[in-house]
């Protein structure tokens, strides 16, 4: 009898184990992190993100994370499909300001999560906190900032006999005109003539002095100091300001740089540079390349030349306006496990992880306490780079930001992009005419928007 009970007990324990084991395993909530809208898809970054997931998963019993890496070109469509198809990821990121603007209605406000546990945000840079806050929503804890600077190829400077640009932010001789003069000397045709030479053949160029190819239309015009800086509308978003004096000046400067002074590659030449298979500056065909710190995570892999960084020059008004990008992770409103997503967001931006995460994505940590650790780690990776240039750029950020939300953000961005495209292809090189047309188009978009949102 006892033996029979023993067998029955064993059987019951086995059955319970069989039934309960999967249930116990399922207790670990999976937080899928959607990566692809910004940085994070480069082959070098993928194993690092997997290692980060491994680190999290081995130290957490109730939550596991998984990075869903989606190619950048299809990421927007894919996320939209996931959001509409009820299969939203729990976290999305790293997101730039543009991504937040593009999916503005989709994000969960994290203010209640912060308030519920009185979460301390005092360690974050005030700037980075502000970049995530909108009148109706706080989109996420800041992860990092991507200040901008000019990468320069020392070998090309040396070969052209041109002095390196200054690293001193106070040096007012470093202007856009100065940049142009140096860049022209480094822009070469296949016979080795530079862009100042009467024998120079602009149809047969093999090297360019300067490029800002990895931005969009708004980004390329921000540095010229318009009253609305990087935003093509007034502060109330009701009037288009794309044909401001400063933007017209800036677009004409870029147009002349391509078609008259020949130190900036046109669209066709940019495509050829990219056809080398390397990131633009890594191609070794550019003397200077204006970019952000995310380039440190994506490019500069064993480049066969010496390089360093310089501040963005002063513009025609004597101002320095250096674009900035800021990244965070956001929780979709319709995510199933928002509380768990909040826990992961906190972990990713915690002082213990933020340097590691930022080294993957190339951002400057948004926590002040992490600055020195990050600086040391970055210096180890790039021992010859002038770190002061990178960090000081934060003080010259563009506000309103060139990626900031405006009504009908995508349409307005495309309208400015069309202006840039006309210049870049040579379809129309008259900046005033182009931006007048752009302004009319944006005004029409704004009028339509306010007509349907007036109530």
């Amino acid at each position, binding site marked *: 009898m006892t033996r029979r009970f023993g067998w029955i007990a064993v059987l019951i324990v086995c059955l319970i184990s069989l039934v309960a084991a999967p249930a116990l395993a399922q207790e670990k909530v999976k937080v899928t992190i959607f990566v692809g809208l910004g940085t994070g898809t480069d082959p070098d970054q993928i194993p690092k993100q997997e290692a980060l997931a491994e680190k999290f998963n081995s130290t957490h019993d109730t939550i596991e994370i998984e990075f869903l890496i989606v190619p950048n070109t299809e990421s927007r469509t894919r996320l939209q499909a996931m*959001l509409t198809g009820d299969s939203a990821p729990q976290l999305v990121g790293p997101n730039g300001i543009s991504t937040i603007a593009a999916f503005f*209605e989709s994000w969960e406000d994290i203010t209640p999560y912060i308030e519920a546990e009185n979460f301390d945000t005092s360690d974050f840079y005030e700037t980075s906190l502000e970049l995530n806050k909108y009148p109706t929503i706080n989109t996420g804890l800041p992860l990092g900032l991507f200040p901008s600077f000019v990468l320069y190829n020392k070998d090309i400077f040396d070969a052209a006999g041109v002095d390196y640009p200054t690293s001193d932010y106070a040096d007012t001789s470093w202007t856009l005109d100065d940049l142009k003069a140096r860049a022209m000397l480094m822009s070469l045709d296949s016979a080795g003539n530079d862009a100042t030479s009467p024998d120079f053949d602009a149809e047969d160029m093999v090297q360019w002095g300067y490029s800002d190819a990895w931005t969009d239309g708004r980004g390329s015009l921000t540095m010229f100091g318009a009253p609305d800086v990087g935003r093509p509308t007034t502060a109330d978003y009701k009037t288009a300001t794309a044909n401001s004096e400063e933007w017209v000046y800036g677009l004409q400067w870029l147009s002349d740089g391509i078609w008259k002074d020949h130190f900036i590659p046109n669209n066709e030449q940019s495509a*050829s540079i990219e056809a080398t298979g390397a990131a633009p500056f890594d191609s070794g065909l550019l003397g200077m390349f204006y970019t952000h710190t995310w380039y440190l995570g994506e490019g500069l892999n064993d480049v066969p030349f010496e390089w360093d960084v310089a501040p963005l020059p002063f513009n025609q008004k004597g101002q320095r306006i250096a674009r900035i990008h800021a990244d965070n992770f956001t929780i979709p409103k319709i995510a199933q496990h928002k509380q768990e997503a909040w826990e992961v967001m906190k972990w990713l931006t915690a002082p213990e992880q933020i340097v590691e995460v930022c080294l993957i994505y190339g951002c400057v940590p948004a926590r002040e306490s992490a600055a020195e650790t990050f600086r040391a780690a970055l210096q180890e990776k790039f021992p010859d780079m002038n770190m002061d240039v990178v960090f000081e750029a934060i003080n010259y950020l563009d506000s309103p930001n060139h990626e900031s939300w405006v009504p009908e953000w995508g349409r307005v961005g495309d309208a400015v992009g069309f202006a840039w495209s006309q210049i870049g292809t040579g379809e129309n090189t008259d900046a005033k005419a182009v931006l007048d047309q752009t302004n009319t188009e944006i005004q029409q978009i704004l009028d339509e928007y306010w007509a349907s949102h007036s109530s």
Partner: protein
Amino acid sequence: MRFFNMRDWTLARREAAAGYMYVAPWVVGFLLLTVGPMLASLYFSFTDYDIVSSPRWIGIQNYTQLFQDPLFWKSLQVTLYFAILSLPSSLVTGFFLAVLLNQNVRGIRIWRTIYFLPSVLSGVAVTLVWITMFNPQVGVVNQILEILGFKGPSWLSDPDWALPALAIMALWGVGQNMIIYLAGLQSVPQDMYDAAKVDGANAWQSFRSITIPMMSPVLFYNLVLGLIGTFSYFTQVYIASSSVSGASRELGGPARSTLFYNLYLFQNAFRYGRMGYASAMAWILFIIVLILTALIFKSSSMWVYYEGELRSKSE
């Protein structure tokens, strides 16, 4: 209950029931996956719908706004221009290749396979290869032109040449047309050619008076499919304009020169979050294609020759 007693059914009724059962999977699929979404999009076309919020009924506002939208007209213009460039060239090239590959020469099956093979390759992969081939400075197309003494254009980077480049790219899939023509050519009775030869017709006269009329139903079929294909052109131009990085990246670029109707529809739906507007565009497209197809059908009585019809009329 009696209704379900199949033993009482007539043979015709049983056959009909079996027929309906066989087609049921397709009909159910068609109703759920095609008619359902079509009706949903018809409803959305009368709403302000951004995917995230609930649709809001706005009547015909999307349609009236469409006709005032310069980009709507631009996208129609681009699509029609592409149709004019691409449709005749793919029809003629396919027909020409089919005639060539209908000859009784050694290794003809290998040649047919070679010419058909490209059309089965993936659109995305092929487009990426073509983008590289069309690169103005390092692409093979311009290198060949240079050897021949011509300076090649900037192709996909040039607003004037981007559409012709896409039309050339579209010829890659001409093998599909070719194989249909080839099947048609092989069904033309040899005795017609023999009779023409007896009557003293030369090769050109036989081709003009026998081959072309006998192939006109196939030409008609390819024309209708080609027209629909042209208006639904999307993948290649999407890949071509989104594979560019940075400031040069512009869907429908350069300078909106490849802003196809479907691409603009896609932008509205998935980039701008204007699903209602995009649905209205889809219905306008449906109507345009319907009208053009109806016109082709209407005109077919003037140029399409059906041997069976002629026989039945003469009888």
